[in-house]
């Protein structure tokens, strides 16, 4: 008894975005990464092929972070003390993209200077051929102070500068436009806010294929359902033809998951939580995999084992 499968035909398409530029394209990357371009809800290949698969980024810091989980310190080891080494290790662990998150202070406790930040970025670019995303430390003035020289020093590399927020986007967008980079726009788990920031950035004249949106998520157990539904709604709106939501989505399940007590610590927790390492990998992996199925195009992770599992899941999802 043949059944007619109802298929959704959507008017909208997600923008296809390429990150990084090779020698021939004005940069120094050994490869570029392209994602986006979807015309269906995630992985529904009976409706349309998946043009580009979601990719995995690994987050590294400019110096060894004090507050990361011991499990992460253990797995990255000495590489954590040198961003170049860390980037190489991340590439070996299967990252498609490196996310370099800058800190407020340097390893000696002094405020991070623009010179130092530019130096770190150049070191990472020199050590590893992957495309790069740079996140400022998250303070308006400092972000602008660091990201502008970074943007200028890496002109043509097609890196992503972050993070644009509704109260601070102008400077970052302007420098990204001037230097051929991309930006990422973060809003706190709200469909309207996300769309609004995209409008503001677009109003400045930023081309659509150079914008990523980060709708923010909570980790498993800490509000993942909000991020989950916001992302589903954004993707649905995009497919329905809302041009201001048709940007690829980047989310940071690694950051979120490793904040949780479940992932971060192994002592002083209930026995019913089970084995620490396996639990924390599951925490990060399930957060990421769930969000990939709502439409995430880039997931930023922290643990190599999670990277492996999430990449497996992506390959599996592509097989019909």
């Amino acid at each position: 008894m043949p059944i007619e499968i109802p298929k959704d035909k959507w008017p909208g398409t997600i923008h296809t975005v390429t990150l990084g530029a090779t020698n021939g394209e004005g940069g120094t990357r050994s490869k570029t990464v392209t994602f986006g371009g979807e015309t269906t809800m995630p992985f529904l290949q009976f409706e349309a092929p998946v043009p580009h698969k979601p990719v995995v980024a690994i987050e590294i810091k400019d110096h060894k972070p004090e507050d990361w989980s011991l499990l992460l310190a253990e797995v990255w080891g000495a590489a954590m003390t040198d961003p170049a080494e860390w980037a190489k290790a991340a590439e070996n662990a299967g990252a498609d993209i490196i996310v370099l998150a800058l800190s407020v202070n340097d390893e000696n406790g002094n405020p991070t200077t623009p010179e130092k930040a530019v130096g770190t970025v150049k070191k990472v670019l020199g050590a590893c051929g992957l495309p790069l995303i740079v996140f400022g430390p998250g303070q308006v003035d400092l972000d602008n102070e660091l990201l502008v020289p970074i943007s200028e020093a890496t002109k043509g590399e097609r890196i992503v500068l972050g993070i644009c927020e509704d109260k601070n986007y102008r400077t970052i967008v302007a420098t990204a436009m001037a230097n051929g980079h991309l930006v990422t726009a973060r809003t706190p788990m709200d469909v309207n806010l996300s769309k609004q920031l995209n409008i503001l950035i677009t109003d400045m004249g930023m081309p659509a294929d150079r914008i990523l949106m980060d709708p923010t998520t909570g980790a498993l157990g800490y509000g993942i359902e909000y991020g989950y539904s916001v992302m589903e709604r954004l993707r649905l709106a995009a497919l329905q033809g809302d041009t201001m939501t048709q940007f690829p989505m980047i989310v940071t399940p690694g950051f979120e998951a490793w904040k949780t007590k479940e992932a971060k610590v192994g002592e002083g927790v209930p026995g019913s939580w089970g084995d620490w390492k396996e639990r924390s990998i599951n925490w990060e992996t399930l957060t990421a995999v769930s969000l990939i199925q709502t439409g995430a195009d880039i997931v930023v992770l922290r643990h190599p084992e999670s990277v492996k599992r999430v990449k497996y899941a992506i390959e599996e999802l592509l097989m019909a």
Partner: protein
Amino acid sequence: MTDHKIVFKQGDNNGEPIAINLPTGTLLSEAAKQAGVEVGQPCGGQGRCGRCVVQVTQGSIRRRSVLRLTSEDVSKGFALACQSVVETDVEILVPAQEKIERRLTTDRSVADVQIPAGYDFSWSQSIRVVHLNLTPPSMEDQTDDWSRLQTAFRIQAGYNRVSCSIFVLKSIGIALRNGNWSVTAIVDVSDQESGIPVKLISLKPGISGEVEPLWSLAIDIGTTTVTVWLVDLTSGEIKARASEYNGQIARGEDVISRIVYAGKESGGEELQIKVVETINKLVVSACKRAGATPDHVYKAVIAGNSTMIHLLLGIPPSSIRFSPFITTINHPPRFTAQELGFNFHPDAVIDCLPGIASYVGADITSGVLSSGMYATDKLTLFLDVGTNGEIVLGNQDWLVGCACSAGPAFEGAGVVDGMRATEGAIEEVWVNSETFEPTIRVIGGGKPKGICGSGLISLLAELFLAGVLDKAGNVNTTLDSPRVREGDRGGEYILAWKNETATGKDITITRVDIDNLLRAKAAIYAGFSVLSEQVGVILEDAEQILIGGSFGKYINVEKAIQIGLLPDVPWERFQFLGNTSVLGTYYALLDSEARQKIKDIASNMTYIELSADNTFYEAFMSAMFLPHTDLNRFPTVKAALNRP
């Protein structure tokens, strides 16, 4: 606990200091109240408004909050009376109390009020005048006066049951005898068909052709303003009108503040007295102008939001504030003037119109009546913006209503240089999109003191279209203009330099002000969206948009649409009706059918509680943008933005 001596010195009179002894930990505001010293608390003592500031000249107090005080103020001994407690003997200097601007704008629409067509005192009115001739008593007929009077009512007027108060009862023996058993009765026949006895209000000796005039009142108790119309019942004519700030205002500017204040010890009684005093004063002044005496006022119909009605009746309003937001009463029975403390005829009928819910009260049912929306087949949107925004959608077949807490930003509150629409307020603004220089129009034509609601709407629209603000309301401080700068609270725009103002300070609009305005406009627009979505009609299909309240009178529709406050529909669909609430009470006062209609409106309107789920929140966030996140809802604004 130790008592401390607290001495108050008042800055605005040279009178003697007032002293009182109270224990450690007493709030200065409480001490002032007990000492009989007036310290204004527009926020109701919540530590929000900063208007109760006093100066401690001797002794020490403890400040719980120094909100709105600079560190310099604190070092000079300034403190918020509602947030500071006594720790030692103290001497307190109370600054001259800022007089609330007494000048109220006149109600433009009043001039157009028509007496309802076909008004006939003897038919339409529940107050009737009845002449009775009684058989005098004798040694044989020993019937008491009251029974005799009832018999006369039954036989001569057809009233089978008549009741009266003790006050009237005291007067009947004398009236009957003075009139030689001929009397003129003033009665209220409301709801007689439902078995309610006819109520004898007044009995006067004699039957004469020329009856003293019968006066009545249409009253609207607003959170901010109370309006009274004095009406000649016989002709239906409005003979005098009077408005005044609600005397409760010093105890809180919005309904929540009033509810909080009413919850304090004796706070409820105080607020009850304040509003009754306000009305009494208004009645005296209206009567004076019309040559009437308050004692000849026999009926008053009152509308107001549910909190105002509860406070008037002395009913604790606390349940209005808390989920699930239930009033004590939506359809109050009739009371007498005496019961509520009014200064008119003690047995005058006080008829408080019915409301629908905690936040959609009798002012709205009354407005729905006077706006006529209940009787049209046109899909109608009715909006009443005061300190809250109430919205009704529907037509003759159905009505839905909701309330959105828009906040008082459009009344100038919550905005640093905001003010009411009185002299010195900037009421309209134009901003040049190349130079970013403004042109302003000031009420009264003098130097500006601040910006009123219509000015704020106008300013927001102009700054947005000139590109000074982005769609999120951020000030673009990178513009080449001295008018924009980075302030302590984000970007700001200077509308008037200090040498141009009456205050000697720059008049600016800051990022925080803009956020407050955006929230207010978003709440109202979200109310529109939710109502229309929930019933399943398209907002822009509304064939007429009726705007009541003082808010609507001076705003520029085009600019209100540009900021996304009003839906983008052709301007001719908008009508500004002024105070629809008092107009509705006027109709209800004169016409029993209109009164019945209000009851029907109150029973049949479907109230939508916006906090029940997150539909409102979604709509609100969507509207927190200029003009809206979905620009397609505002085609004319879209076109204006695309214009080169």
